[in-house]
């Protein structure tokens, strides 16, 4: 049991890293990594939203969708749950902790239609994970994404000083860079077999 949870955690953070081997969340990945500060803010918000979103969807999937045979509606239901939760978090944070809201609120708005936030509940449903396994997947994916954001942000800060050919400035060079990091992450494959 514990072993499986740990395996899922490490696999989702490193081996199946969402950015480098499943190619998800690229919009945010390229959008916020121009500055270190924004990437760190995004990492925190993202991991928290991911954990809570995955837990909520797990309860709804196990106790509502499976008993009533609503599995085929999972796309509609999960996106509704995630969007409603993010909206609620936005409103609550604004009222309860305005200071935190002004720091992280902007990232919440970006997260609503993010593919990873939706992918985690979908994978959990597909693999029939238990609550602990789902949480391990969510935490692992969140930390893996944070790792990707922070690595990329530190490289892109250096990139400002580099002499990049004109056609490659902006996104193209970022893609090539991501490819290089992905090459490094390829080394993790085979570390654990699921």
């Amino acid at each position, binding site marked *: 049991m514990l072993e499986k949870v740990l395996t899922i955690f490490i696999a989702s953070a490193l081996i199946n890293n969402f950015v*480098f*081997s*499943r*190619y*998800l*969340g*690229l*919009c945010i990945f*390229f*959008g916020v990594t*121009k500055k270190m500060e924004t990437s760190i803010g995004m990492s925190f918000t993202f991991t928290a939203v991911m954990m809570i979103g995955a837990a909520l969807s797990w309860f709804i999937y196990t106790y509502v969708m499976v008993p009533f045979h609503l599995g*085929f*509606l999972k*796309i*509609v239901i999960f*996106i*509704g749950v995630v*969007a409603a939760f993010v909206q609620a978090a936005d409103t609550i944070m604004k009222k309860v902790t305005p200071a935190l809201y002004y720091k992280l609120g902007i990232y919440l708005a970006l997260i609503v*239609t*993010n*593919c990873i936030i*939706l*992918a985690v509940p*979908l*994978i959990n449903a*597909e693999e029939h994970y238990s609550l602990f396994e789902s949480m391990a997947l969510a935490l692992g994916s969140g930390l893996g994404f944070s790792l990707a954001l922070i690595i990329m942000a530190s490289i892109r800060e250096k990139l400002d000083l580099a002499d990049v*050919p*004109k*056609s*490659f*400035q*902006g*996104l*193209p*060079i*970022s*893609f*090539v860079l*991501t*490819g*290089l990091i*992905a*090459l490094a992450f*390829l080394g993790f494959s085979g570390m654990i077999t699921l």
Partner: protein
Amino acid sequence: MTTDKVNYGTIIKNGIFGENPVFRLALSLCPAVAVTSGVKNGFLMGVAVLFVMTMVNGTVSLLRNFINPKVRIPSYMFIIATWVTVTDLVMAAYARDVYKQMGLYIMLIVAFAIVLSRAEMFASKNKLIPSMVDGAAMGMGFLLALVLLGIFREALGKGSLWGYKFVETKPLLIMIMPTGGFFAMGLMMGWLNWIDRKFFGGTGGGGGGH
């Protein structure tokens, strides 16, 4: 009548070249990199997106006078989710082997920024037929981008096209691995920027920050 025709021409040109979702707007990049390890997967994904965008734009356009502007974004999201579910179930029934590889990405069409942005920017203000044409044109631009990337990666990575081998060796295996997707995308974007600067006098470079 003639003005209508000119309009359609502009819409189509705009979708495929001017605002190509992948290379120009740099939206919805995830599947563009994820499923293009072969031409066939890229093509099927493109067809799925084309279908979803056309139907979503059509539905949004039909309902544009009934949806309260305050809840329009959630409404659009449910319309998109519905059509994605339709696509997902059809794919799962009729294209099993492909679905096994890219089912997750089909489901994630629902989170595509491009679909929502077209519904919001175009379909919510226009009549049925122009909206559907706009959706189809944008989908076509997406499809072309995916096929282009698919050709590039499959030819280099496997030495084949659509599964048919034309050389015996595997010239550059790395192109079909995850990292190759990023390289292919970066090179393709850089190349298109170069063409744009060289032959069309565009600004080239910089390209979308999202």
